[in-house]
C-alpha cells in the first residue's frame, strides 16, 4: 500500500510540475497576474508530493518490504536501521528521487525567500525549475520507478553495496546533490532573465546568494566523497580523477568561476553575457554528470546498474534543456550588452583571467573524461586517460589561477596602475617567496614542486593580510573592533574561503611531498619502522559484525620505545553479498595521519599467518578536507550578509547605483 501511495504521489507531482512549468510562464508572457500567482502554490504542492513519495520509499526500506524491487536489491534485514534509511538513496532510482526532492526543495526555498522579486521574474524562475522537474519526474516514472513491485516478494534482500555502508556515504550524496541541484536556481534565474530581456546588477545580486550556497554544499559534498575514498578504499589516495569524481568537479570549477563573475556583474555591471553563460554551464555540467554516471557510457569505479533506455532518455533531456538554453543564449545574449569598460590591470581583468583559467581547467577535465569516448566514436582506438594527463594539464592551469587569487582582491576596480599594485604587494610577495624557499629545508626535503605549492599557499595568506590591513586603514572608525565591524560579512566570507584554499594547498603539497608508503609482509609479532614510529603487528582476530564477519588486526605504534596507540584495521566479508571490504585504521592528527590497512593474508592460515600490511604516513593530509570545509564555511558566511536581505526589497537598483556605492566604500 505504502509503495503505491508513493507511486501515486509521484504521478501527482508530475501533473503539478507540468502546471508549474507552463502556467506561470504563459502568465508572464501575457502579463496575467493570476496565472503568475500560481507559481508559489505549485512549488509548495510539488515539494509536498515529492517529499511524500520519498517518505514512502524510506518507509519501505525501514520496514524491510522486500516485495518492492528496489528494497529487495538494495537492502537486507540484517542491515542496521541508519543504513536502511541511507539505502533509500543508495540505488539508481532512489538517488534520482533524492535529486528530484532536492530540486523541489530548492524551488520551494526560492518561492519563500524571494517574496520581493518582481512577480514576472519569480514566475519565470519557478517555471524553468518546474520544467527541469518535469524531465526528472518523467525519467523516474518511465524508466526508473523506485516503487516497482517484485512478485512474489523476495525472502531476503540482496543488501546495500558494502562500500556504501559507511557514515561518510550516508551524507555524501545528499550534500553533493544539494550542490548539483542548487545550481538549477542560478540557471533558472539566468534563463528567466534571458526570456525577460533584463540582465543587470539586480539580477546578479539575486542570483549570488543561491549560487554561493549551492557551491558551498557542493564543496562539502565533494570533500566528504574524497575523505570517504581515503579511508575506505584502503590505499590511502584521496582523488583518482575517476569519471564520476570529475562529474562533480566540473560543476564545482564552473560554479567557482560563476561566483566570481556574478560578483563583478553585481558590482560593476560588466561580463553580463559571460555570467549568464557560466550559470547555464554550471547546471548543464551537473546534468551532464548525471548522464555520464547513469548511462554507463564511461567505465568507472562507481558502477551503477545501466540501461540503454535510461541513457537515451537522459541524452534527449540533456539535448532539450542544455540545447534549448544555449539556443536562447545565442538568440538573446547579443541584446544583453557588455557593460562598462575597464583597463588591462584592474580587478575586473584579474577576475576575468581567473574565470578563464577556471573554465579552461574545467574544459581540460571534460576533455580528459570524454577523450576515451571521442576516440572510440571516431574508431581511433580505445584508451583510458589517467593520472598523468590530469597532473600535466591541471596544475599548470590552477597555479596561475591561485596566484591571481592573491592579486584580485587587492586590485582596484576599473583601473589599477601596476607600480601602485606592486608597491602594495611587494612585502607579501617577498615574505611568501622567502618562506616557501626555506620551509622545505626545515621539513627535510626540498623539491621545486613543494616550494611552489607552499609559495601559493603562503601567498594567499600574506596577500589576504595585506588586503585586510588596507581595509582597516581606510576605515574612518576608531578602534580595531569598530574597524573590523565596518566590513561586511560577505567580505569576511571571501577571505575565509580564500584561506580555505590555502589550507587545502598546504595539505595537497605536503602529503604529496612527504608521504611515506610501505607495503610489508609482517608475521605475528613482526615490526617495521616508518618515520619516527615503530609499528608492531600482533596478528588478526576473527569476530562477527552486525551483517558481516570481520578479521581485525592489531597494530601497536611506538615512538621512542613508548606505546602511543593501538590501531585496529579490519577486513570485512559481508554476509549477504560476500563482498570483501577493507577498513583502514587511521590515527588522525593536525600534523598528519598514521594509516594502517590490511592487505592480503600471505599464508594459508588467515589468523595466525603473515599478512601484507600497508603502513602509510600522510603528513597534513587532513588539511585537504579541513581546507574544503573552510571554503564552504566562507561561502555560508558570505551569504549571511545583511545586504542580500535588504537588496531584495530595493526592487530596481540600477547597475550604476551599485557601482557608485562600491566606489564610495573603497
Amino acid at each position, binding site marked *: 500500500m505504502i509503495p503505491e501511495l508513493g507511486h501515486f504521489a509521484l504521478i501527482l507531482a508530475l501533473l503539478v510540475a507540468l502546471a508549474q512549468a507552463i502556467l506561470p510562464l504563459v502568465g508572464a508572457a501575457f502579463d496575467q497576474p493570476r496565472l503568475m500567482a500560481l507559481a508559489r502554490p505549485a512549488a509548495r504542492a510539488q515539494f509536498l508530493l515529492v517529499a511524500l513519495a520519498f517518505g514512502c520509499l524510506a518507509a519501505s526500506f525501514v520496514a524491510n518490504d522486500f516485495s518492492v524491487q528496489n528494497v529487495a536489491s538494495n537492502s537486507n534485514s540484517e542491515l542496521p536501521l541508519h543504513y536502511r534509511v541511507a539505502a533509500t538513496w543508495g540505488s539508481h532510482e532512489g538517488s534520482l528521487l533524492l535529486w528530484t526532492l532536492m530540486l523541489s526543495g530548492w524551488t520551494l526555498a526560492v518561492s519563500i525567500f524571494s517574496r520581493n522579486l518582481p512577480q514576472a521574474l519569480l514566475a519565470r524562475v519557478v517555471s524553468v525549475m518546474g520544467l527541469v522537474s518535469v524531465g526528472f519526474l518523467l525519467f523516474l516514472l518511465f524508466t526508473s520507478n523506485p516503487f516497482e513491485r517484485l512478485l512474489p516478494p523476495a525472502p531476503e534482500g540482496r543488501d546495500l553495496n558494502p562500500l556504501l555502508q559507511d557514515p561518510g556515504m550516508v551524507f555524501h550524496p545528499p550534500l553533493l546533490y544539494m550542490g548539483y541541484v542548487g545550481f538549477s536556481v542560478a540557471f533558472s534565474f539566468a534563463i528567466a532573465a534571458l526570456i525577460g530581456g533584463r540582465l543587470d546588477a539586480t539580477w546578479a545580486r539575486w542570483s549570488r546568494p543561491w549560487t554561493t550556497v549551492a557551491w558551498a554544499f557542493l564543496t562539502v559534498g565533494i570533500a566528504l566523497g574524497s575523505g570517504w575514498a581515503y579511508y575506505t578504499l584502503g590505499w590511502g589516495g584521496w582523488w583518482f580523477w575517476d569519471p564520476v569524481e570529475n562529474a562533480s568537479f566540473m560543476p564545482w570549477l564552473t560554479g567557482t568561476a560563476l561566483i566570481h563573475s556574478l560578483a563583478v556583474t553585481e558590482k560593476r555591471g560588466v561580463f553580463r553575457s559571460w555570467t549568464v553563460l557560466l550559470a547555464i554551464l554550471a547546471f548543464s555540467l551537473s546534468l551532464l554528470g548525471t548522464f555520464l554516471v547513469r548511462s554507463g557510457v564511461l567505465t568507472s*569505479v562507481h558502477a551503477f546498474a545501466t540501461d540503454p533506455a535510461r541513457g537515451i532518455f537522459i541524452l534527449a533531456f540533456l539535448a532539450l534543456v542544455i540545447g534549448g538554453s544555449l539556443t536562447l543564449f545565442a538568440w538573446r545574449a547579443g541584446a544583453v550588452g557588455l557593460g562598462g569598460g575597464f583597463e588591462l590591470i584592474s580587478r575586473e581583468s584579474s577576475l576575468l583571467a581567473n574565470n578563464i583559467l577556471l573554465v579552461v581547467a574545467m574544459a581540460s577535465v571534460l576533455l580528459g573524461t570524454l577523450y576515451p569516448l571521442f576516440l572510440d566514436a571516431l574508431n581511433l582506438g580505445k584508451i583510458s586517460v589517467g593520472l598523468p594527463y590530469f597532473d600535466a594539464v591541471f596544475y599548470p592551469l590552477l597555479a596561475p589561477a591561485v596566484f591571481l587569487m592573491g592579486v584580485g582582491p587587492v586590485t582596484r576596480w576599473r583601473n589599477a596602475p601596476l607600480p601602485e599594485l606592486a608597491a602594495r604587494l611587494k612585502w607579501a610577495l617577498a615574505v611568501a617567496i622567502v618562506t616557501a624557499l626555506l620551509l622545505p629545508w626545515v621539513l627535510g626535503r626540498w623539491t621545486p614542486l613543494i616550494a611552489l605549492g607552499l609559495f601559493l599557499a603562503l601567498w594567499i595568506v600574506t596577500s589576504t593580510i595585506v588586503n585586510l590591513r588596507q581595509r582597516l586603514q581606510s576605515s574612518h572608525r576608531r578602534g580595531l573592533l569598530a574597524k573590523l565591524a565596518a566590513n561586511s560579512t560577505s567580505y569576511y566570507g571571501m577571505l575565509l574561503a580564500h584561506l580555505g584554499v590555502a589550507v587545502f594547498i598546504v595539505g595537497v603539497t605536503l602529503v604529496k611531498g612527504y608521504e611515506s608508503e610501505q607495503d610489508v609482509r609482517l608475521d605475528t609479532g613482526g615490526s617495521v619502522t616508518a618515520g619516527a614510529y615503530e609499528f608492531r603487528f600482533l596478528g588478526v582476530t576473527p569476530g562477527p559484525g552486525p551483517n558481516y564477519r570481520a578479521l581485525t588486526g592489531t597494530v601497536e605504534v611506538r615512538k621512542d620505545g613508548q606505546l602511543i596507540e593501538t590501531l585496529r584495521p579490519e577486513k570485512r566479508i559481508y554476509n549477504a553479498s560476500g563482498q570483501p571490504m577493507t577498513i583502514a585504521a587511521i590515527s588522525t592528527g593536525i600534523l598528519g595521519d598514521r594509516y594502517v590497512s590490511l592487505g592480503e593474508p600471505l599464508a594459508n592460515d588467515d589468523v595466525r599467518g603473515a599478512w601484507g600490511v600497508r603502513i602509510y604516513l600522510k603528513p597534513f593530509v587532513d588539511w585537504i578536507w579541513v581546507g574544503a570545509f573552510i571554503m564552504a564555511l566562507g561561502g555560508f558566511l558570505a551569504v549571511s550578509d545583511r545586504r542580500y536581505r535588504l537588496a531584495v526589497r530595493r526592487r530596481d537598483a540600477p547597475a550604476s547605483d551599485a557601482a557608485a556605492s562600491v566606489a564610495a566604500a573603497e
Partner: protein
Amino acid sequence: MKTFRWSIPLAIFVVLIAFLWIGLGRDPREVPSPLIGKPAPAFRLTKLHTPNETLAASDLKGKVWLLNVWASWCVSCRTEHPLLVQLAKSNIVPVYGLDYKDDPQAGRDWLAKNGDPYTASIVDRDGRVGIDYGVYGVPETFLIDKAGTIRYKQIGPITPEALQEKILPLVRELQQ
C-alpha cells in the same frame, strides 16, 4: 557575425551531444563481444615474474581458465582485485593475468602490494594481444573453455553478482 559569436557554445554542445549519442550506441557494457563462441586468439608472451619463460594460449588447452586483463595504472582494477584474490584462493578456476600496456616492473610491484591472484601473468607491453581480444578498457575478463573457445566476457570490473550468477555457474558447467 555577432550572432555567430553567441552561438559558439551551442555549436560545441551539438558536437558533444553527437559524440555522446554515438557513445551510447557503443555502450561497452551492453554490446556482447563478437568473440564469444569463437576460438580464443592465439598468443605467446613472456611471463611477468619469469621473463625467460613464455606462455601460449595453446598451453592451456584442456583446462577451463579465466584471462583477466589488468594493469598497474588501472584504477577500476583495484575494485575487482580483492575478489580475484579470493577466487584464486578457492581454487575453483585458474586465473591468468594479461598485464596490458604496462611497465613490467610497475606490474610486479603492484601485485606485490595488492596480492597476486594469478596462476601466471603475461606481459602485453604494446597491447597487441589486447587488440586481438578486442579489449575496450581495463579491466576485462574472458572465460575460456577446454577447447579454447571464449564463452564469456566481463567488461569492466568483476562484481560479486557477476561472479556468483554468471561466471561461476558457467565455469562449473564447462568443467563437467
